[in-house]
């Protein structure tokens, strides 16, 4: 004869396992539903500049910011320098929309160090989001927006 306590002790781990599994499933599902992707950004200081450098992008470019969402820059878009942040020179275009996307979406302006796109300036958040990895851009002089 098996004592009642013994039966209870044999069943308990199963119940515990089922409960744990249910809890994990709930947490997983909740994780899927809520903030699944966050954009890593650091506060920065923007200084506006008028009549800066201008260039044209020679090829389509995809930039990753570690959020799982790409930011794409289109070939033949015209870019003008609008200011500086400590991380580099900031450019804008009127030829396409540029956003950095995670669970939330941010308008984003490319930040360049020479021909290297190192990240984006977020004008609403006054923050910098680094490209992972930085991307070399093929560009030609001229243009204007």
């Amino acid at each position, binding site marked *: 004869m098996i004592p009642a306590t013994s039966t209870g002790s044999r069943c308990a781990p199963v119940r515990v396992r089922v409960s744990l599994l249910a809890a994990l499933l709930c947490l997983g599902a*909740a994780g899927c*539903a809520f903030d699944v992707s966050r954009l890593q950004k650091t506060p920065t200081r923007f200084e506006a500049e008028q009549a800066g450098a201008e260039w044209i992008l020679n090829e389509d470019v995809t930039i990753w910011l570690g959020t799982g969402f790409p930011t794409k820059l289109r070939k033949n878009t015209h870019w003008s320098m609008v200011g500086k942040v400590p991380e580099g020179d900031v450019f804008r275009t009127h030829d396409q*929309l540029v956003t950095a996307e995670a669970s939330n*979406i941010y*308008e984003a302006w490319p930040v360049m160090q020479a021909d290297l796109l190192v990240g984006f300036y977020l*004008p*609403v958040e006054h923050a910098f989001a680094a490209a992972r990895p930085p991307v070399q851009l093929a560009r030609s002089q001229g243009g204007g927006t």
Partner: protein
Amino acid sequence: MRKRRHLLKSLCSLALVTVLLGCATGKTFSELSGGLTPPPPGQGRIFIYRTIVLGFAVQPSVKLNGDVVGTAVPQGFFYVDRPAGVYQISTETEVTRTLSLTLEPEQVRYVRLGIGMGFFVGHVYPELVDDAQGQADVATCHYTGT
């Protein structure tokens, strides 16, 4: 068997009516556009719209810098005129989704309200779209503003 078929028909009809009731019914953009005045000097305009009927029961308020400016009604649009500056547009279901954007004087921006999967309910999220896409989308929507 006949009863079942009748019940199925009734349920389908009910579902269709519910979906239609959940959609915007105001004037279309083309009916309204003649009466649309440009934004006041120094201000820009933000069109906010939702084309997707999927998840029609989920119609959260749309906030602009924390103030409610409209509702995410399927196939509906509204617009706000605001001084040039920086803005955050947000919707709240079981989570809050935010879009950050800049607005210049006389600039017109288009914000589409998409819908994504959620745990209990769908998530309505604002996204910036380019002018050509925004104009085409808004043309199919009904005005829900006041």
